[in-house]
């Protein structure tokens, strides 16, 4: 290790410690970096196979564990979506499927994809792997708690999956779990299924809190010397802000899950009014179904940004690296992330315009919702302005980024329809909503995940994924997904309601049949195309080209580890010292078109770098 270590440029940058004048340097003053205030973290190194790969405390292994578990749930969610599309497009082929099954698939697909797939993947997966590496830490600050976090998530997934096998099957209440139907006869899985769902969600929140504390405190307290907040990669900013949101939003979910469990098990009436069912008045009375919706969306809307903000951050970094240009308007990008995060707590009831809440709320929530469009639009402008006058590599990573921009802008603009209260009235609860949120928080973040996988795979596995297969994977996924969701908006205009097992004979919906068949076929193809990635990964691990260190010529610290893939402890004997932001690409006067964060000013004395 020592050879590689000595030759590595980042460690030469340690010469910045020369403020006490111990070694020679061109100009010690401009290289000054404040000494660190705390000592080095002591790491617990694994002693056995189980400690290394199962109950592991290394954030990178935990990140991969989170990633693989989340991908497993994602594949389950994908198969469920195939079954749904089979029923919607070709009901004659789906004779085995009852309405109960259909609603169970809808529910599990939604909950899995939003919580167990996207949230876990971005924060648990990318967060764990990238945070310590990007801020220059040896590991998360509480490695043991971090390990518990993953295993709690694992148990939550196991409980969720178990609900497929209990009497009555999993809950079919819709992923929003609106009471009273959620816990009453008449909804599939209203017995064991919903209980397991509520328990699983509670476990998820507990596990996630353990991880989230780690992400936040590591970013706030364990950054290496010179890594000021305004020098952090936007990936870290995105994950950090999302984690803060999650810490504030998930308690609302936990509370509503606990209260609903009590309503179910002990017949309390938090959310249950007087109910007449099958001619009998039930034991409930006085509760408020709308209260649940407020709690749920107080969690549910920030949840959208818990998924979106890490995607925003990651895609900013990918675009910058592959366009060989600094991210345009970094400070604006940071404040937009923080601003969107803060605003996301004031918009929740835009999911409830037609819920029967006091209609005067509509004015307030429509206004806050459309305000959030401004910082979001700024981010979009800055991404495309980063491309402008760049030196853009059109590789697989960049293709996913471009796909993200198209789908995100498309989905963002349909969000302006739905956020604008009176426009929402005809469109809410129709296929327009489904098309909107899949485009903006399904496909767009997925594009970023895929780009990130192709971008960081060389770091994680030390090998380069196949570009040819990657291009097939991208084009089939992008074109297919776009042709699923773009036309789907128009079904919403017709007025086709969501969550319909079948349309029966509504006269104005017959024209939707052809489109439903088309959408289903596209969905089968897009789903199948994801196996190209799995094949690519297996092929690459077996026979792939070995990756050189820092193959993309990026600046951020994760590419300047002592070994590739990085070992436990990440940075060898000495932590890197940071002198600049991670976006010094194509700096006039510099020899290369990139200057790593660890390069001291004195090493690039003739460049026209802006101070960061």
């Amino acid at each position, binding site marked *: 290790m020592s050879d590689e270590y000595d030759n590595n440029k980042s460690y030469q940058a340690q010469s910045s410690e020369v403020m006490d004048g111990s070694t020679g340097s061109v100009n010690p003053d401009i290289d000054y970096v404040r000494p660190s205030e705390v000592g080095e973290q002591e790491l617990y190194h694994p002693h056995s196979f189980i400690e290394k790969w199962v109950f592991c405390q290394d954030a990178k292994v935990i990140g991969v564990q989170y990633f693989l578990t989340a991908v497993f749930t994602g594949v389950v969610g994908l198969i469920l979506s195939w079954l749904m599309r089979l029923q919607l497009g070709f009901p004659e082929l789906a004779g085995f499927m009852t*309405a109960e099954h259909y609603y169970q698939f809808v529910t599990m697909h939604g909950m899995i994809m939003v919580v167990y797939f996207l949230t876990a993947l971005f924060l648990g997966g990318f967060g764990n792997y990238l945070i310590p590496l990007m801020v220059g830490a040896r590991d998360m600050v509480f490695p043991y708690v971090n390990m518990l976090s993953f295993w709690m998530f694992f148990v939550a997934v196991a409980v969720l999956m178990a609900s497929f096998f209990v009497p009555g099957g999993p809950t079919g*209440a819709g992923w929003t779990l609106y009471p*009273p*139907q959620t816990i*009453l006869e*008449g*909804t599939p899985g209203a017995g064991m299924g919903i209980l397991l769902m509520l328990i699983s969600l509670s476990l998820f929140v507990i596990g996630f809190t353990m991880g989230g504390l780690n992400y936040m405190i590591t970013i706030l307290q364990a950054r290496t010397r010179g890594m000021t907040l305004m020098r952090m990669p936007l990936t870290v900013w995105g994950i950090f802000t999302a984690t803060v949101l999650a810490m504030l939003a998930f308690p609302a979910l936990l509370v509503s899950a606990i209260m609903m469990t009590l309503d179910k098990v002990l017949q309390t009436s938090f959310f249950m*009014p*007087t*109910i007449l*069912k099958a001619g009998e*008045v039930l034991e409930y009375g006085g509760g408020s179904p*709308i209260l649940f919706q407020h709690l749920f969306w107080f969690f549910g809307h920030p949840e959208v940004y818990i998924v979106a903000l890490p995607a925003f951050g990651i895609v900013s970094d990918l675009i910058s690296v592959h*366009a*060989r*240009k600094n991210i345009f*308007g*970094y400070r*604006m990008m940071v404040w937009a992330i923080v601003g969107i995060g803060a605003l996301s707590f004031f918009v929740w009831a835009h999911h409830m315009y037609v*819920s*029967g809440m006091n*209609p005067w709320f509509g004015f307030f929530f429509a206004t806050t919702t*459309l305000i959030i*469009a401004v910082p979001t*639009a700024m981010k979009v*402008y800055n991404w*495309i*302005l980063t*491309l*402008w*006058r*760049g*030196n853009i590599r*059109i590789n697989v990573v960049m293709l996913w980024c*471009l796909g993200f*921009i198209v789908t995100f*802008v498309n989905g963002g*603009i349909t969000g302006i*329809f739905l956020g*604008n*209260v*009176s426009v929402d009235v*005809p*469109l*809410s*609860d129709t296929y327009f909503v489904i098309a909107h949120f899949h485009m903006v928080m399904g496909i767009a973040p997925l594009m970023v995940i895929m780009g990130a996988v192709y971008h960081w795979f060389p770091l994680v596995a030390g090998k380069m994924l196949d570009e040819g297969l990657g291009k097939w994977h991208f084009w089939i996924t992008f074109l297919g997904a776009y042709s699923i969701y773009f*036309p789907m908006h*128009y*079904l919403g205009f*017709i*007025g086709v*309601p969501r969550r*319909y*097992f079948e*349309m029966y004979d*509504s006269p*104005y919906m017959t024209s939707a049949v052809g489109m439903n068949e088309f959408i289903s076929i596209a969905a089968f193809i897009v789903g199948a195309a994801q196996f190209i990635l799995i094949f690519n990964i297996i092929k690459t691990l077996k026979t792939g080209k070995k990756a050189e260190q820092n193959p993309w010529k990026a600046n951020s610290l994760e590419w300047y580890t002592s070994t590739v893939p990085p070992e436990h402890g990440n940075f060898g004997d000495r932590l890197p010292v940071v002198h600049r932001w991670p976006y010094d*690409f*194509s700096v006039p006067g510099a020899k290369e*078109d990139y200057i790593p964060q660890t390069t001291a000013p004195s090493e690039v004395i003739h460049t026209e770098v802006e101070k960061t």
Partner: protein
Amino acid sequence: MHAGIIFLLVIVGSVLFHIFTPWYWTDIASNWKGMDDTITLTFWVGGGVFVAVCLFMIYCVFRYQHKEDRRAEYKPEDKKLEKILTWATTLGVAALLAPGLIIWNQYVNVPKNAIEVDVMAWQWGWQYRLPGKDGKLGTTQVRNIADNNPFGINPDDPFGKDDIMVESDVINLENNRPVKILLRSVDVLHNWYVPQFRAKMDAVPGTVTFYWFEPNKVGEYEVLCAEYCGVGHYAMRGGVEVQDKADYEAWLGEQETFEQLSARYEKLNVDGNKLAKK
């Protein structure tokens, strides 16, 4: 290079799809044309932004493809440009929000001459109640619901006596007369939705919600439940028949009042008791 061309085709295809789509609004049959107009406006503004952003992106892909001997521009910030973009976006968003709020204001303020219709939902069906001669609906309670009181009207409420019971999933409405839909549910959430009227609102057990519209086209329409309500959700249909004044009043005259219904049941009871005594 081919990447840029495919992206360009996607954008052009999207615009063409929008222009030539056979799938669009079901013809409107109520006063809420303003909602359609706001959507059209949003389409123009939003669609314009979408096309502009994507075309700019595609231009960059063509124009700034990677060349080894070229360097990207180094310009971390451009305060002026960022300021212009922020204000332009804010203005655009405000221009879309304003009509949205104006129409919402109309939506939540019901005209004084609107006729009230009590829409009662359950798993899985609908029934309707109209005010009688006094023009007022009687108050109700879920616990009062019984065979002889299908709407749960409070028996002591004088306004309830002449209420008109429509124990059918089809309701008739008078053309060109505003209707205030009062929604309630006896079990779970539902939503009384007619795509042609555009308007909707959830029915929530434990409370009464409302919305209004003015039908303006004679004809028959299908009612769909638009809030997931359990396994029969997709089959929870109903109907509306919009009629001219004369037809409507003829229909209204044939309906039973609460008083008549109670009397009918009382007679049944008395007859039943007589039978039992014999």
